[in-house]
């Protein structure tokens, strides 16, 4: 395909913005339109469960770029109007308000929606944390609450639990894994995280699923576990993962299975690309389809797709990376921590909670996890990068 004269980016969050910035930086001078379902200018999501929720930041501080920087992009922002349909052949997007937006190249960056529990929508006092509005609403309710139950033992649930303790709430964390963040950290580092939360006063109810919400007069009053135990709550946060926002692509002809399915260039169809949480592309280094819900991937994939739109024709094979901030700990992973991997502490000291651990599967380095040692962790990144990014670029 020849180089496009216009690009429509569907999704005005980190991935969409990164794609736009990279297109301009690489000299693209055609028309760029960013379509956003929310009314806000692009904002950053990691602070929502931490600085915005705690009140340390006013919501405005989460905005990704100052307005003059956005204006300099010379892109049209169409906000508060979610995409409602795509015609892949003509590359036309229809919006909820009935706009028709057409472009030579379309970038799908619609992210994920928070998964919810049955009946959650009808109850007051139950929250998800995906959008800025979600975080602001929850922040107001936490200020008037005493008992918080967090349903979900992944990154978001653990961060919300930590923020809740910081606000002085009585916090219980419930989830099906044996330790928090087990799927990201593995059982050993997840166990350290569980101990850390317990020391900070979080009640851990792990290893059991949640069977439902308990309510009184239209307001949540607790969470029922599969064991039958009931956890009383004034407010409940449901952090049980995200669902790729692909419902608007029904009938488009694109393959959507746990995300927009893409090739190793992040291309879903001729002239149609996907970026960020919504994209499930073939990672050559892992030789498997991969969908990453993390902040770093959104920007890096945006950069890769911008290059490919402009003809680079290069596979996207990043070293996955994410971090989390809980209490005074900053924990990060370069690569992945596969099930059954063996951990070796290669720097620092676990007892003082300042260390770097390398994870190997069958003797091959697959991930490096750092706890309060960001720079030293990055310095070990090369060991996993060599495995994950074969000479494909």
């Amino acid at each position, binding site marked *: 395909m020849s180089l496009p004269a216009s690009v429509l980016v569907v999704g005005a969050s980190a991935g969409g913005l990164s794609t736009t910035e*990279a297109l301009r930086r690489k000299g693209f001078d055609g028309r760029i339109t960013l379509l956003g379902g929310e009314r806000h200018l692009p904002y950053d999501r990691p602070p929502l469960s931490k600085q915005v929720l705690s009140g340390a930041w006013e919501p405005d501080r989460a905005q990704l770029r100052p307005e003059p920087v956005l204006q300099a992009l010379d892109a049209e922002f169409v906000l508060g109007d979610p995409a409602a349909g795509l015609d892949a052949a003509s590359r036309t997007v229809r919006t909820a308000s009935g706009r028709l937006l057409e472009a030579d190249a379309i970038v799908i960056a619609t992210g994920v929606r928070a998964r919810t529990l049955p009946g959650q929508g009808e109850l007051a006092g139950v929250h998800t944390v995906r959008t800025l509005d979600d975080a602001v609403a929850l922040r107001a309710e936490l200020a008037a609450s005493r008992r918080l139950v967090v349903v979900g033992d992944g990154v978001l649930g653990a961060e919300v639990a930590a923020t809740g303790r910081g606000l002085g709430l009585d916090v219980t964390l419930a989830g099906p894994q044996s330790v928090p963040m087990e799927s990201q950290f593995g059982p050993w580092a997840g166990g350290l995280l569980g101990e850390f939360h317990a020391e900070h006063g979080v009640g851990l109810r792990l290893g059991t699923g949640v069977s439902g919400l308990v309510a009184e007069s239209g307001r949540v009053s607790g969470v029922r576990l599969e064991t039958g135990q009931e956890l009383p709550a004034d407010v409940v946060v449901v952090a049980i993962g995200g669902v790729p926002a692909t419902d608007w692509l029904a009938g488009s002809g694109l393959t959507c299975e746990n995300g927009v399915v893409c090739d190793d260039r992040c291309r879903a169809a001729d002239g149609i690309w996907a970026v960020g949480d919504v994209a499930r592309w073939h990672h050559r280094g892992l030789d498997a389809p991969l969908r990453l819900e993390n*902040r770093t991937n959104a*920007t890096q994939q945006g*950069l890769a797709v911008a290059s490919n739109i402009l003809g680079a024709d290069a596979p996207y094979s990043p070293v996955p990376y994410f971090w989390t901030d809980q209490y005074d700990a900053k924990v990060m992973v370069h690569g992945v921590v596969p099930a059954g991997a063996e951990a070796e502490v290669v720097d620092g000291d676990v007892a003082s909670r300042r260390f770097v651990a390398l994870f190997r599967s069958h003797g091959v380095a697959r991930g490096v996890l750092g706890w*309060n040692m*960001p720079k*030293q962790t990055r310095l070990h990144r090369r060991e996993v990068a060599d495995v994950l990014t074969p000479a494909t670029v």
Partner: protein
Amino acid sequence: MKVTVDEDKCCGAGTCVLVAPDVFDQRDEDGIVMLLDEAPAADQHDAVREAASVCPAAAILVAEA
């Protein structure tokens, strides 16, 4: 070009150091960004713009002269 960093926003990922190691480093103790050159030379500008764009905490601001 004038570069500024927001240490309070910095998440310590080190992405900027991977992209522009002559302009950015990280503190040994907590990984927070260290700006080595707030007015980098022209041959660094592309890398610095990319570092600002890919920073996962939007902690780098570039003002073009």
